[in-house]
C-alpha cells in the first residue's frame, strides 16, 4: 500500500510543532582582518586532538607570511576544556581585551 494513501475512515490529525523558540543573544561583530601584519592573534586550545602540534605548524607559517604578526599562544591564554569550564569561558572576553586581540583561533573540535 502506498503509505500516503488514506485508509477508508482513517482519522486526520492536526499537529503542532515540537521545538521551542530560538533565543540566541545578539552578538556584536569584530571587524574583518585582512592583513595580519601589526595585528594580535590569540589562540585557545582545549588540550585535545594534537592542537599543540597544529598550533606549532600554524604559527610557524603565520610568522613566515606575516612578519609583523603578534601571536599570544595557547599556553599563555590557558586551556579551555576541563575543570571550571564555565568560569574559564566567562573570563575569555576580559582576557582578549587584556591581550588586545584582533583575531582569535579556538581549537580543536570545539
Amino acid at each position, binding site marked *: 500500500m502506498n*503509505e*500516503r494513501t*488514506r*485508509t477508508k475512515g*482513517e*482519522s*486526520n*490529525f*492536526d*499537529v*503542532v*510543532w*515540537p*521545538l*521551542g*523558540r*530560538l*533565543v*540566541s*543573544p*545578539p*552578538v556584536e*561583530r*569584530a*571587524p*574583518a*582582518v*585582512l592583513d*595580519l601584519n601589526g595585528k594580535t592573534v590569540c589562540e585557545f586550545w582545549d*588540550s*585535545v*586532538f*594534537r592542537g*599543540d*602540534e*597544529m598550533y606549532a*605548524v*600554524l604559527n610557524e*607559517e*603565520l610568522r613566515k607570511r606575516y612578519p609583523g604578526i603578534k601571536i599570544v599562544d595557547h599556553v599563555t591564554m590557558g586551556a579551555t576544556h*576541563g*575543570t571550571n*569550564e*564555565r568560569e574559564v569561558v566567562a573570563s575569555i572576553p576580559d582576557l582578549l581585551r587584556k591581550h588586545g586581540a584582533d*583575531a582569535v*583561533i579556538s*581549537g*580543536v*573540535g*570545539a
Partner: protein
Amino acid sequence: MFMGLGRAVAKGLGAADTAIAEYRGVPLIDTKEQLRDNVINILLPQILDGWGKRTAASQAPATEPKPREIVYSGTLQQVQDYFDQQLWADGLPVIPPTLDRVDEFLRCCDRSPDDVVGICQPEYREATIWNIAVNGVMAGCRPEYMPVLVAVVEAISDPLFFLEDAGSTPGWEPLIIINGPIVKELDFNSGSGVMRVGRRANTSIGRFLRLFMRNVAGQRIPPDVTDKGSIGLTFNVVLAENEDAVDELGWAPFSVDQGFSRGENVVTVQSCVNITQPTYTGGEEALNHVQIIAEVIGHANAYWSFCGIRHRKMYPLIVMSPSVAKAIADDGWSKDDVRKYLYDNVRLPAHLVEKYARNCAYNDYDLGKLVTQGIVPAEYHESDDPDRMVRVFVKPEWIGIVVAGDPGRNQSKGYVQNHRQGVPVSKKIRLPSDWISLLKRRQAAPAK
C-alpha cells in the same frame, strides 16, 4: 571534525557566520607529515578566509511556528512521514501531537504553558511547559507523567549538567533515576527486568528525554549531525529505586544521598557512557560482595578514569539488587562503607591512565605535569614509577548506589558516568495541588 555541532553552537550563540576551519583527517591517527600538510594547505587558508569575512550584524532568526499553530494535517502515517522529513521524530512511531492531546498533558501541571523551564543548548531553544507536553505526547507518555517530565527537563537544562556536551564523541546517554512515592503512583518498574523496555512509565519517559534533546536542544544524528557521538548508546529507560527494599536495609534512598528528604519525589539525571557486565556476588560477607564489585564494575570505570582524574569529576553509579544490598547491610556495612572501599581499592597503573588518555584525545596527558599545574592532587605522582597504582574515583561520596532489580537474584551492574559532562543533577518533582484526585480520575478513565 565537529562541523555540524560547531555550526549549531555558533548559530545558537547568535553568530552563525563564525568561521569554522575543517581539519580533513583523523588527528589521532594521521602522521606528523599528514598533520603538517593538513594545517598548512587546508586549515590555514580557511582560517585566513574566515578572518577576512564578517557580516555586519547577527542574522534575525527565521520565522518559526507559534506554540498552538497547526503545522501539518494528515493521517497517522502522513504525520509520521512529515515528522521524519522534518527530523522531529526519533526513528520510532510517534503519537501525533494534536492540541487536544497536548492540552490533556497541560491539565496535569499547575504551570502556564508559556513558562520557560530552561534554555537548551546547543541550539539555544527555550524549554517550556508547552514543548515538554508536546514531546511527552509524541514519546507515548501518559498525561499524568507531566510533573516528572518537567523535573527531568529542569535537570538537563541546569547549566551544571552541560547539556551542550551531550553530543560529544563518547556518545553518552542521560540516565534518569526516580525516587519517592511517585514510583508506585505512576507504576514504574523497580524489580525484575528493571532497565529493560516494557513498562510504560519507565520506557516512555526515557524515550521522551532523548526526543526532547533532539527537538529542543537540537542534538541529532545524520543527516543533521549535531550529535558527534561516535558510536552512541540507545536511550535509557528510567531507573526507579525499590524504596521498600531500601527501607528494610536501614539505608537511605539514592535521593537522600542527593540532598533530599526521604519521601520526596525526586528525579536525578546523569550521563551514562557505558553499562558494565552483570556482576554476581554471593555469601554473607560484605567484603566478598564489594571486592567483586570493585574488580568488575571498578575495572569498567578504570579505563575511562583518565577523564575523571583530569576533570576532577566522576559519578559512577552502581545498581545493586536488593539481595546483594541486604547481604552487605546485614554484615554491618553502610553505603558509605561500600563507597570508601571502592574509593580506596579501585586503582589503575599510572602508565595505563596516560596511555588511554593519549589514545583518546589528550595527546599531552601527563600525570606529573597535571600535578605540577595543580589540576590533579599530588597523590597521582608520588614517584616516577609507571606501574604505581593510582586512584580511579575522585570522591567516595560521588559513587552512587541505587537498589533495584530482581529481588531473587544476586546481581549488580555499573553505569559509567562521563566526568563533568552530565554530572548528576536532581530536581524535586512538583505535583499539582489536586494530584491524588487527578491521578484517580486519570487512572479511572484511560487516555483518549
